[in-house]
């Protein structure tokens, strides 16, 4: 089971590659000094070194972000570009350039370059290389799982976006809970993709329904304040919360009963309210 939504923040701070950005800062002063002294050769090495070090640090940071994402998912492809490795190499080469700027020979610069590259690799590690494929998926392919999950996440993001535009705190909170529940369902499907086929209707019809209702309400409510509209929307959301919760429970319980039953109830409710 992959980690749920929390617990990343502390690690993020520690593994943000802050040091890689801090170490080159003295070079700004060095470059100013070289410029003032008119030593342009030195200046060139410093500028190139500084730019390379910062770019390397950014690459490592992006690699770390990718890795966190990879670790959080139950099904994931290894990143195509080995960002951390490339970042470490760039950091090494740039350190070599800085060493040359201080008047070191090529040999010393090469040693410094290797040392720095190794240092980055030791501190921040290497990129994940193996795809985390679907296990025991009951005929569902990794690509299928990835696509389904990505689509569902995009829809959930739309629901969140609509919720942000709604002023009513209660309705906003309800939508937030619905989105959170949907996220749990997606995560559950990701770690147990056998259920993806069973949950297809949920993923396609009801997630779409939730997104459309939210978007529609956010749009109309910006123009008119109507108690009736609000009441309808509240009833729809209540139904949705219940249905999504029931879906989640069923998935968790590996309930073989058809998931479509409560969805059918929700569909009727949506229809009654004139949403679908």
């Amino acid at each position, binding site marked *: 089971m992959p980690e749920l939504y929390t617990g990343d923040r502390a690690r993020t701070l520690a593994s943000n590659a802050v*040091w*890689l950005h801090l*170490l*080159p*800062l*003295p*070079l700004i*002063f*060095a*470059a*100013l*000094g*070289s410029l*003032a*002294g008119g*030593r342009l050769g*030195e200046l060139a090495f*410093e500028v190139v*070194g500084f730019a390379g*070090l910062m770019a390397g640090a950014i690459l490592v940071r992006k690699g770390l972000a990718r890795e966190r994402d990879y670790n959080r998912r139950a099904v994931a492809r290894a990143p195509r570009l080995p960002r951390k490795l490339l970042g470490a190499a760039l*950091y090494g080469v740039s*350190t070599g350039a*800085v*060493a040359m*700027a*201080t*008047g*070191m020979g090529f040999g010393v610069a090469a040693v*410094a*370059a290797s*040392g*720095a590259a*190794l*240092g*980055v*690799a*030791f*501190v*921040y590690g290497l990129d994940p290389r193996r795809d985390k494929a679907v296990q025991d998926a009951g005929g569902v392919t990794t690509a299928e799982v990835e696509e389904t999950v990505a689509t569902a996440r995009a829809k959930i993001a739309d629901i969140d976006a609509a919720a942000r535009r709604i002023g009513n705190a209660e309705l906003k909170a309800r939508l937030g809970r619905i989105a959170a529940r949907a996220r749990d369902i997606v995560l559950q499907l990701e770690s147990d993709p056998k259920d993806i086929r069973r949950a297809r209707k949920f993923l396609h019809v009801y997630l779409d329904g939730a997104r459309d209702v939210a978007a529609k309400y956010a749009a109309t409510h910006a123009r008119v304040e109507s108690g009736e509209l609000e009441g309808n929307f509240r009833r729809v959301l209540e139904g949705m919360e219940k249905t999504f919760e029931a879906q989640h429970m069923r998935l968790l319980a590996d309930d073989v009963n058809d998931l479509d039953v409560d969805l059918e109830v929700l569909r009727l409710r949506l229809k009654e309210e004139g949403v679908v």
Partner: protein
Amino acid sequence: MTNAWIRALGFLLLFGTTGLFCLRAVGAAGF
């Protein structure tokens, strides 16, 4: 070696190379 030791060694390498030469560059520039 444990991960913590490898990380420590990595930091040592980083400070001993990038850190050192960046500071040396400041010195060489006449500050």
